[in-house]
């Protein structure tokens, strides 16, 4: 399955820089995938997935240097680690549309005998995934380990990771944040999805995160912000800026403000759709707001 041709979305030409319009079309299609996947099995996490759609589309189609095919060690390419594994729908959609596995496999999301488990895992050998995540707060440590391996291998490629903001309540993150700065892990770009929402409500009500930027800076990180993480151009520009800041002795953190549920109006600005599937009528509304662009799976 790994042998499937890469970059089917863009005519198989990886060298060609996709136009912004093409990426926007891809983002719209990914949003359709997300709500359709979650609707089909009446479970899953659409809110954070929709909010991070631009990030994933940009990362996998514009930012990361990727080899063809998939091997676990990933030497000679950039790697990505998803720490907040519950937003698997956006991850699976983008991986499939980037050619890591057949698009039709999105039909198996959360079903028995599927490689597309509720939360991403290596256990069934899904190409593109290098670590299991779901139990929160573990991804940054793993990303640091992979970054250290890159340095040992004299591999100049970069490690990217994504973390939910609520997830920063897990203490292990701060062990990792301390390590990355203290040990100068400067080939790491950790992005925090600052949507301000978690299962029980607003992050600032559940357990105030306060000034995340200042906290990372106090630990010794180079911190930058993407103020509108649902503006594709802004995300691309932000990620490029972050990349330019690597290799300078500090890990790089992007605080990326997004709207949970972005692109589906009734899912926006609320934590209600963190982990809830739309019903049939709601699906129709969501799809109408995101017209088919590249073809449904």
């Amino acid at each position, binding site marked *: 399955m790994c042998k499937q041709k890469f970059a089917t979305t863009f005519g198989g030409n990886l060298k060609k820089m996709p136009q912004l319009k093409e990426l926007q079309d891809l983002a719209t299609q990914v949003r359709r995938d997300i709500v359709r996947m979650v609707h089909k099995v009446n479970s899953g996490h659409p809110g954070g997935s929709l909010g991070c759609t631009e990030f994933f589309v940009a990362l996998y189609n514009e930012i990361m240097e990727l080899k063809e095919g998939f091997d676990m060690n990933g030497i000679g390419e950039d790697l990505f680690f998803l720490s907040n594994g519950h937003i698997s729908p956006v991850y699976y959609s983008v991986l499939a549309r980037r050619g890591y596995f057949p698009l039709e496999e999105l039909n198996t999301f959360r079903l028995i005998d599927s490689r597309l488990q509720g939360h991403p895992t290596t256990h069934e050998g899904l190409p593109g995934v290098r670590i299991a995540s779901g139990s929160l707060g573990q991804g940054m440590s*793993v990303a640091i380990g992979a970054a250290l391996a890159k340095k040992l291998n004299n591999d100049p490629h970069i490690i990217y990771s994504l973390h939910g903001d609520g997830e920063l309540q897990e203490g*292990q993150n701060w062990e990792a944040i301390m*390590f990355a700065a203290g040990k100068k892990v400067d080939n790491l770009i950790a992005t925090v999805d600052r949507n301000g929402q978690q299962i029980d409500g607003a992050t600032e009500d559940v357990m105030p995160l306060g000034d995340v930027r200042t906290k990372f800076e106090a630990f010794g990180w180079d911190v930058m912000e993407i103020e509108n993480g649902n503006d594709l151009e802004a995300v691309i520009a932000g990620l490029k800026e972050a990349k330019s800041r690597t290799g300078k002795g500090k890990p790089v953190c992007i605080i990326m403000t997004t709207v949970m549920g972005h692109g589906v109006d009734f899912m926006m600005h609320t934590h209600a759709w963190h982990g809830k599937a739309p019903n049939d009528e709601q699906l129709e509304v969501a799809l109408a707001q995101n017209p088919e662009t590249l073809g449904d799976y």
Partner: protein
Amino acid sequence: MKKYIDQGKNDTRSGYGAGMTELGRTNPKVVALCADLVGSLKIQEFIDENPERFFQVGIAEANMMGIAAGLTIGGYIPFTGTFANFSTGRVYDQIRQSIAYSGKNVKICASHAGVTLGEDGATHQILEDIGLMKMLPGMTVINPCDFNQTKAATIAIAEHQGPVYLRFGRPKVANFTPADQKFEIGKALMLNEGTDVTIVATGHLVWESLIAAENLENQGISAEVINIHTIKPLDEEAIIKSVKKTGCVVSAEEHNFLGGLGESVARTLAIHHPTPQAFVATQDTFGESGTPAQLMEKYGLNNKAIEKAVLEVLEKKA
């Protein structure tokens, strides 16, 4: 019975350190991590010889497990080092998700296991770690008995693909394994052949079992002693073969009777060859401060306790 010679008391953790030194020289993919316990884990020589392959993570064991998982992505073989308590219970979910479920080639190396840690007391004396680790799918669990065997096990697990829990201890104990004996994961070692009772022992209790067998021989009881250094995968064949001959078994371990070697043996025999069994293990209790010898005595983990268990189980033989 066969005589075993103590080549000079030494600690199993130093066996780990010696194994790491050798791996540092022979396997460029081996990297070491430690959570502020370099002296306790005896890995200074590895660090001196391979500074670029050592990662000091500070007092942050959860982060250490995650970093170790990440280092495998890129082809490295990470060996994490801290006390057994902080290697398992403290970081169970990190091991479960980032290492075991993710199938990462991490070697979790744990010193100061059991009550023989001594004076530091129960906060540090984990007696549940074998159970915790053996319950994780895909995890190999090894508890070598002395310096030489720990060194050999350390070297052997680098060649094994997959997560391993390697458990060893703090006190200096008899070192009787031949220095050149190769370590075979999952292969029990027949130390003394006997006909009346089988003693299956792991870790520090192996030497105590040999002493017990000698004492029993003086009473006319022929005890077979098997060193089960690998609790998972368990050498079921060796155990079944032995009890078919002897008709009863004593398991001996420095661990709670819940979740330890004894339970694995009981399960195996219940399925394949139901056999009377006695358990030398702690009885669902925490430890406490004291000298290793005092604690082994109080918690029934020495040769006298094994001897007593043998006499009890012989009564149950049909």
